[in-house]
C-alpha cells in the first residue's frame, strides 16, 4: 500500500462506518436513510448557499484543527482552543471598537495582531506552566477555557455592552475593520453569505503550518520533541522552549477564528458565538491525521454535516439534526479506535516476531 493510501484508509473507514451506523438509526426511527443523506449532503453542496455556508463554517474548524495539530506534533494536547478563541475574539472586537477611527490599512492589521497575539498569549500560559512546573497542559487548558469565557463575559456585561441591549454582546467595531465577504469577488455568490477573506487566510495558514513544521528548524525541533523528548534533549533541543513555542503557535492559530467571526461576520464580540469550534478542532485534527491537508478535508466534512443538518431538521419527518452529532460521534470513535485496530492487526506481522 502506498503511503497516501495508508494515511487515508482509517479516516475513510471511520467516515463510511459513521454513515452506516447513522443509516441504521435513521431506519429505526422510520425514515429512509438515502433520502435523509441526500437531503443532508445535497443541501450542504448546493450552489451557492450550501457551498458558501459550508466553507464559512469550515473556516474556524481549519484554524482550530491546525491549532490542535501543532500541539499534537509537539506531544501536547491543547484542549484550550475554545478559550483561546474566546479571548482572542474579545480582544479583536476591543481593538476594533477602541481604534474605530483608524483607516482600514491600519485597523485591519491591528485587529489581526490582536487576534493572533491574544490567542498566543492565552495558549502560551499553559505552555509556560508545563515548561516551568511540569503541570499538565490538559488540566490547565481546560481550566483556562472557563476563565476565558467568564472573563470576557464580565468585560462585555459591565464595560462594553451597548446600554439597554438585552443580548450579551459588545458594541459594533468600526466599519473600517470589516473584511470583505467573498461574494463581492465571486460571480454568483451572493454577498449576504458570510464566507469571507478569513477562509483564504485559513488555507494560507495550512500552507504556513506545513512549511513551519516540516521545512524549518523550529518545526523540526517541535516535531522531534513530540516524537521522542529524550532524543530531542540528546540532540541539544530545549524541550521547555519547544513546549512554550508550540502552545503559543497553537493558541495563535485558535485565536485567528476571531478574524472570521468578528471582522468577517458579526462585527462584534457576541457571547456564545463559537459552536464548540475549539473542541470540534480536536476531532478535525484527529480525522485529518494531524496533517494540514487532512485538516482541510476533515474541516470541510464537519462543516458540511453541520450546515446540512439544519436542512435535515427542517424537512425530514422523524430525523433531526442530532443525526449530525451521531455521525460526528461515530467518526471520532472509529478514529480513536485506530490504535486498537493497528494493535490487533499488527500482532501477526513479521517485525513483531
Amino acid at each position, binding site marked *: 500500500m502506498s503511503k497516501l493510501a495508508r494515511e487515508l484508509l482509517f479516516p475513510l473507514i471511520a467516515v463510511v462506518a459513521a454513515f452506516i451506523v447513522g443509516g441504521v438509526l435513521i431506519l429505526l426511527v422510520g425514515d429512509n436513510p438515502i433520502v435523509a443523506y441526500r437531503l443532508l449532503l445535497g443541501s450542504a453542496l448546493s450552489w451557492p448557499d450550501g457551498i458558501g455556508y459550508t466553507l464559512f463554517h469550515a473556516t474556524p474548524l481549519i484554524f482550530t484543527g491546525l491549532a490542535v495539530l501543532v500541539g499534537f506534533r509537539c506531544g501536547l494536547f491543547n484542549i484550550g482552543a475554545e478559550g483561546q478563541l474566546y479571548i482572542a475574539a474579545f480582544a479583536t472586537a476591543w481593538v476594533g471598537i477602541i481604534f474605530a477611527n483608524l483607516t482600514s490599512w491600519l485597523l485591519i492589521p491591528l485587529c489581526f495582531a490582536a487576534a493572533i497575539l491574544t490567542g498566543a498569549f492565552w495558549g502560551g500560559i499553559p505552555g509556560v506552566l508545563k515548561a516551568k512546573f511540569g503541570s499538565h497542559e490538559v488540566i490547565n487548558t481546560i481550566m483556562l477555557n472557563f476563565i476565558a469565557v467568564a472573563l470576557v463575559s464580565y468585560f462585555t456585561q459591565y464595560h462594553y455592552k451597548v446600554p439597554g441591549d438585552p443580548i450579551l454582546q459588545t458594541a459594533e467595531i468600526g466599519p473600517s475593520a470589516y473584511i470583505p465577504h467573498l461574494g463581492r469577488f465571486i460571480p454568483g455568490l451572493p454577498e449576504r453569505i458570510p464566507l469571507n477573506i478569513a477562509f483564504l487566510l485559513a488555507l494560507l495558514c495550512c500552507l504556513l503550518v506545513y512549511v513551519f513544521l516540516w*521545512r*524549518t*528548524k*523550529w518545526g*523540526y*525541533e517541535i*516535531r*522531534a520533541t513530540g*516524537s*521522542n523528548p*529524550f*532524543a*530531542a*534533549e*540528546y*540532540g*541539544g*533541543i*530545549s524541550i521547555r522552549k519547544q513546549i512554550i513555542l508550540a502552545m503559543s503557535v497553537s493558541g495563535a492559530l485558535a485565536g485567528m477564528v476571531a478574524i472570521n467571526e468578528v471582522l468577517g461576520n458579526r462585527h462584534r464580540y457576541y457571547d456564545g458565538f463559537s459552536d464548540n469550534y475549539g473542541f470540534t478542532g480536536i476531532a478535525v485534527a484527529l480525522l485529518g491525521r494531524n496533517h494540514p491537508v487532512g485538516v482541510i478535508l476533515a474541516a470541510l466534512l464537519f462543516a458540511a454535516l453541520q450546515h446540512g443538518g439544519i436542512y435535515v431538521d427542517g424537512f425530514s419527518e422523524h430525523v433531526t439534526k442530532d443525526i449530525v452529532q451521531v455521525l460526528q460521534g461515530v467518526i471520532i470513535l472509529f478514529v480513536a479506535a485506530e490504535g486498537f485496530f493497528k494493535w490487533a492487526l499488527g500482532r*501477526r*506481522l*513479521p*517485525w513483531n*516476531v
Partner: protein
Amino acid sequence: MLELRQITKRFGDVLANDHVDIVVKPGTIHAIVGENGAGKSTAMRIAYGFYTADSGEIIVDGQPRDIKSPHDAIALGIGMVHQHFMLVETMTVAENIVLGAEPGTSLGLDLKSAGAQIRQLSEEFKLAVNPNEPIEHLSVGQQQRVELLKALYRHARLLILDEPTAVLTPLEVEEFFAILRRMREQGKTVIIITHKLSEVLAISDEVTVMRDGKVVGRVQTKDTNAAELARLMVGREVLLRVEKTDAEVGSPQLEVRNLSITDINGAKRVDGVSFEVRSGEIVGIAGVEGNGQTELIEALAGLVEPERITGEINFEGKNLNALGARIRRELGIAHIPEDRHRRGLLLDFSLAENSILGMHYRPPIAAMAGGIFLDENAVQRRASEIIQAFDVRPPNAALPARALSGGNQQKLIIGREYRVDPKLLLVSQPTRGVDIGAIEFIHRQLVGLRDDGCAILLVSAELEEVTSLSDRLLIIHDGRIAGEVDPKVATLEEIGLLMTRGH
C-alpha cells in the same frame, strides 16, 4: 527428544523459516545460534505452539505431534523461558509458579503442597529459591530461576531458553550454567537460543546455526570454535579480536574532578569520581549495570540538570558544568547513547531526519534565509553520506528509523556522531543487540577514531568488549571508581572481583 522436520513459516513477504531441520537429542544441551532475524526464535516458538508452521512436522519422542498451542507443548513436556520474564511482581514465587495450573479444588487454593513440591525441585537442582518470597524482592538472576522452576513444576523434560544470559552479570551467568549442567545430569534436555559465541562453546553439546531462515550448519561443540561459528552465522570470515596498535596519547581532553551526581529522588548515583581521558586513547569503564555508568555519561553529555551535579567537568581546560547539551556538541563532544531507542533516535522520523539530529539548526543543514529553513538537499546529502560510509541497510533515507535492525540503527547513530568530528566521544554499550558482522565494523570504527586523535570514553557491560578495546580500564562499583587496571594484563577474574566487591 525433539525434532523439527522441514519446518517452513512465512510472515507476509518474509520467509522466517525455510525448510528448517533441527534434531535435539535427549539429555543434551543444544544451542541454536544465529544473528537477529535468522529465524531461531521463530523455530522455537513453533515448537512451543506459539505459531503454527505453514508446512513441516514436529516429532516429539519419535511420534509426529500436532502442537497448536503452548498448552499442547506443556502436555508433551516442553517448557519455554522467554527473554522477558512473565512474572507477577507483587505475588510470591509459589503463587507465580502455580499460576495457570493452580492446585486444589476450584474453591480452595492448595499452596502448601505446591510450596513443598517447589522446595523439593529447588533443592534437587540447587536453585536456592524460597517459594514464599515476593518476586519484587528477587534479583534478575533469581527471577530467571523462578521461570525455570515454573517449567519444571509443569514436568517439562525439554526446556527452551530464549537468550537467557542477556540480563545476567558475568557471575550470574556462571551460576546459571552450573544449573543447566545439573539439569542435564538429571536427564533434562535444554535448548538455548543465543548469539553469544563464548557461551555456546562453554555450555552446549551440539550447535545448530541459522542464517536468513535456514539451517546453515550442525556441529558438535567439541569439534568447533568461535571463528567457525561466526563464519557460519555471518556467511563470511569475521575478525573476532580487535586489532589495534598501542595508543599514541596526547594531552588530557576530559578532566573529571570529584564528580557526584544525585538522581531525582536525591540518591547519590555517582560518588566523588575523578579521572581523565587524553586524546588518542580509549578509556573503558567496566561495571555491573546500574552502578552509575548511565548517570556519569549523561552528566558528561549535558543531559543532567546542573543542580544535581557537584564537582567539576572540564573539557580542554574549560568548565562544562553549566553548559547545555547543544554547546557541548558544538565544542566537539559526541555521544553514542546506551539506549538508542530512548535517546539516540527519533524512531518515527526518517533516516534523513535522524541523520541531522543535533546539527539541524546550523549550516550546512539550516542555511537558507538566515538559517531558518532546512536545506532539503543538504539533509539528503548528509543522510546518503552516512548511509554509504557506514553501510546502513537498507540504504533508503526515506525509511523510518524504526524499520532498521538494531545494528543498522547503531551504524546510523555512529555515522551521525562521527560527522561532528569529535574531539571527545562518549560511547555507551556500542554493540548491544548488534549482529556480529556489525560489531566488528563498529569496533574498527572506534579504534580508527582513536588513531585520529579523538579521546574516547567507553562504557560497556560486555567485559570482553571493554577489555579488548580499552587502553586503560576503570572499574566502577556503586558509583565509585573501584580501581584501574591495564586491560592487556588484567585477568577477567581480577576485573570481575572489582566489579562486584568494589575493592
